[in-house]
């Protein structure tokens, strides 16, 4: 579209807020400005007329006289040009097209004041599309420190749009920016100033931008390159093949240590809170199906999910802090050298790292990978990374294998992580040679300036990801918990004679020996639960499916544990706890009872061979419905999650079979 074909600005309806788009290059401080404008109340939602989930926030644009104008501001992904064949460029071009279904009322372009040529060319490309525009000259404080000065009047005249100096990090110039937005909205799309390129050709836009910068920007480093030996040394060290790798692993070790060390306190608090809530419900509601549903289904399901929230939030908080320092971009190159041998791009390391907390945010973060095959390969292998939900299973089984030998148990724990990583790399290599052919695209990445990270931005990222985690996982897990509760609670089964006999004995001892009576009552309750589980729909399903898992050394209880874990891995421990009649009041008691439980024929439920088989299965199998739903959403096809389910579970079965029979052959039963 030429500048002569400017469209009218769509009038805002009284009832709905006007819509503004926030556009800018990567590392321009766009997200910091978004958070400054909207606070921490932004949400990620599907944008009307597109298939993309974007961050949307609300703000009030002050009026010169009268009421403030309610506005919705959409944070578009960082982009370099509207003309590139990349998802973020195509999305922005689509939203700014002359025939867009939901055209914006205005656009705010965030420009890095220390490097103006590139963002000014982007602003010019948007200005020529006939949209009311304001340019926020961000990081003005940094530019001033570097001795750069600006003729804002000349910049505004050249572009035909207000240009406002701001520092999003410090909150400087925000009021002026909002006033300029109001001015631009009231004025509508202005007549294009003379000299603005009519074509969207990159060379024309850049030539225009360079001439405007030369005439409007002064200072020692205005258009030249700044030399900084400290930055050179840091870059050389962080991207060094050996030193860079050592630093990367040290940083990651510190990150994981922080997650496990710091998150344990809020995790304990959450568990205690839900336990108290469950206890309170049990005390106020009469025994029956409703109480069981609330305590066993609702409270149990929610607590099992929410308990991982601190780790998720903390992980994103720390990763965002790291990203904000500028280090992660350098680390991406270090990992690129390793990952590219297996067909994965360097960009994949953040999603793979994130997947150690939970595969869902890891898969969501693959959106930063530009190439479709690179991205899908990363999505396919991300769930191999050992997530938090596997931890209870690892604790149970490594503790069983190496009782009172914490160092050996720790090594086994580490081996689980390594096995997952090796499986991910091997599967990626296979995928790139078969279903997603090609090699990963060599990395090209802007290296942002080193700076002090913003706690505000990190907090916003942590809150947003935490909410998304709860929204995505909580709903699915909750539904599954209800179903599992129903399957294990029905049909109701009469108490076994042994339980009735124990209860009768307890009644006779109630007055003479209350402690012994309590023990008998507890034992009777366990027998009731066990009978109920055996006769329930869940128990029947477990027995029906037992032949599929018997070659791995599992009986019907372990089979049912594995099957219920396809909803969520952490369910294994709670399922086994119920099936072996564990005392749910004590976690140590739960683990001990599972580890010492027996099968129907009196043989041990877990042997070393069975435990290793189960451990291998849980490392490799795709046992998370929420992840599958997320993969479906991200790939927009059921083909990929079903393929992932078949591949991971098939591989897990074969590896567990090999481990079990290998150990049996070695005489380790």
């Amino acid at each position, binding site marked *: 579209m030429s500048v002569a074909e400017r469209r009218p600005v769509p009038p805002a309806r009284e009832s709905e807020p006007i819509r503004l788009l926030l556009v800018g290059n990567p590392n321009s401080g766009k997200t910091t400005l978004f958070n400054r404008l909207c606070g921490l109340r932004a949400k990620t939602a599907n944008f009307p007329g597109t298939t993309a989930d974007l961050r949307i926030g609300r703000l009030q644009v002050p009026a010169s006289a009268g009421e403030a104008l309610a506005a919705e501001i959409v944070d578009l992904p960082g982009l370099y040009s509207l*003309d*590139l*064949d990349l998802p973020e460029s195509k999305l922005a071009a689509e939203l700014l097209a002359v025939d867009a279904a939901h055209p914006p009322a205005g656009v705010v372009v965030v420009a890095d004041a220390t490097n103006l040529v*590139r963002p000014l060319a982007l602003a010019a490309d948007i200005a020529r599309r006939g949209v009311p525009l304001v340019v926020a000259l961000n990081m003005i404080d940094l530019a001033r420190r570097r001795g750069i000065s600006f003729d804002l009047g000349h910049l505004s005249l050249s572009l035909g749009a207000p240009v406002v100096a701001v520092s999003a990090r410090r909150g400087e110039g925000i009021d002026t920016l909002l006033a300029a937005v109001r001015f631009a909205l009231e004025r509508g799309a202005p007549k294009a100033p003379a000299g603005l390129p009519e074509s969207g050709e*990159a060379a024309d836009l*850049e030539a225009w931008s360079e001439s405007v910068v030369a005439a409007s920007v002064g200072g020692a480093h205005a258009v030249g390159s700044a030399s900084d030996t400290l930055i*050179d040394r840091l870059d050389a060290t962080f*991207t060094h093949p050996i030193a860079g790798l050592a630093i990367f692993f040290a940083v990651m070790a510190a990150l994981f240590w922080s997650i496990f060390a710091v998150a344990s306190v809020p995790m304990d608090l959450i568990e205690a809170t839900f336990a108290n809530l469950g206890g309170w419900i049990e005390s106020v509601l009469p025994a029956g199906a409703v109480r069981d549903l609330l305590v066993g289904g609702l409270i149990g399901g929610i607590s099992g999910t929410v308990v991982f929230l601190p780790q998720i939030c903390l992980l994103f908080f720390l990763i965002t802090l790291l990203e904000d320092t500028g280090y992660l971009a350098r680390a991406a*190159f270090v990992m690129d050298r390793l990952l590219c041998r297996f067909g994965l791009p360097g960009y994949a390391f953040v999603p793979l790292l994130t997947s150690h907390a939970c595969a869902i945010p890891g898969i969501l973060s693959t959106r930063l990978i530009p190439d479709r095959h690179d991205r899908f390969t990363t999505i396919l292998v991300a769930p191999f990374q050992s997530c938090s939900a596997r931890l209870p299973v690892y604790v149970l089984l490594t503790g069983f294998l190496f009782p009172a030998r914490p160092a050996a148990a720790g090594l086994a724990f580490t081996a689980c992580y390594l096995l997952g990583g090796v499986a991910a790399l091997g599967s990626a290599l296979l995928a790139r040679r078969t279903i997603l052919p090609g090699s990963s695209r060599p990395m090209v990445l802007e290296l942002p300036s080193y700076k002090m990270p913003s706690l505000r931005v990190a907090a916003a990222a942590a809150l947003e990801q935490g909410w998304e985690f709860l929204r995505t996982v909580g709903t699915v897990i909750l539904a599954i918990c209800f179903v599992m509760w129903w399957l294990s609670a029905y049909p109701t089964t009469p108490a076994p004679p042994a339980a009735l006999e124990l209860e009768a004995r307890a009644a006779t001892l109630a007055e003479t020996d209350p402690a012994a009576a309590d023990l008998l009552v507890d034992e009777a309750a366990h027998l009731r639960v066990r009978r109920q589980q055996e006769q329930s729909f869940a128990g029947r399903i477990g027995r029906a499916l037992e032949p599929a898992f018997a070659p791995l050394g599992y009986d019907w209880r372990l089979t049912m544990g594995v099957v219920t874990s396809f909803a969520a891995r952490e369910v294994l421990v709670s399922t086994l706890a119920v099936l072996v009649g564990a005392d749910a009041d004590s976690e140590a008691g739960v683990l001990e009872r599972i580890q010492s439980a027996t099968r129907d024929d009196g043989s041990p439920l877990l042997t070393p061979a069975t435990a290793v088989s189960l451990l291998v299965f849980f490392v490799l199998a795709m046992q998370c419905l929420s992840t599958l739903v997320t993969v479906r959403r991200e790939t927009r096809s059921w083909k990929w999650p079903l393929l992932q389910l078949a591949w991971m579970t098939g591989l897990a079965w074969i590896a567990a079979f090999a481990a079990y029979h290998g150990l049996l052959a070695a005489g380790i039963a």
Partner: protein
Amino acid sequence: MPEHRAGVPPAGVPLAELPSGVPARLAACALPPLEAKLLAAMGLTLGSRLVVRTQGDPTIVEVRATRIGLARAVAARLTVVAEPAAP
């Protein structure tokens, strides 16, 4: 951006071989169109002035006050012409 092998000055060298600290101009780009357009959008246009800050894998170049990391495979397909040293 199409490939620009033609017209490479005889003095041109692959960016991957340009010593650190030597100012140069981008003379040719032998990358597929998508990568070439991305580089151009990032500021690495034909004729743009650049300096290698760290040579290796990645090659880190500074162009218009922005540092860009390029995998060695990319840097090897960019041809630059060193600029004469300032008097």
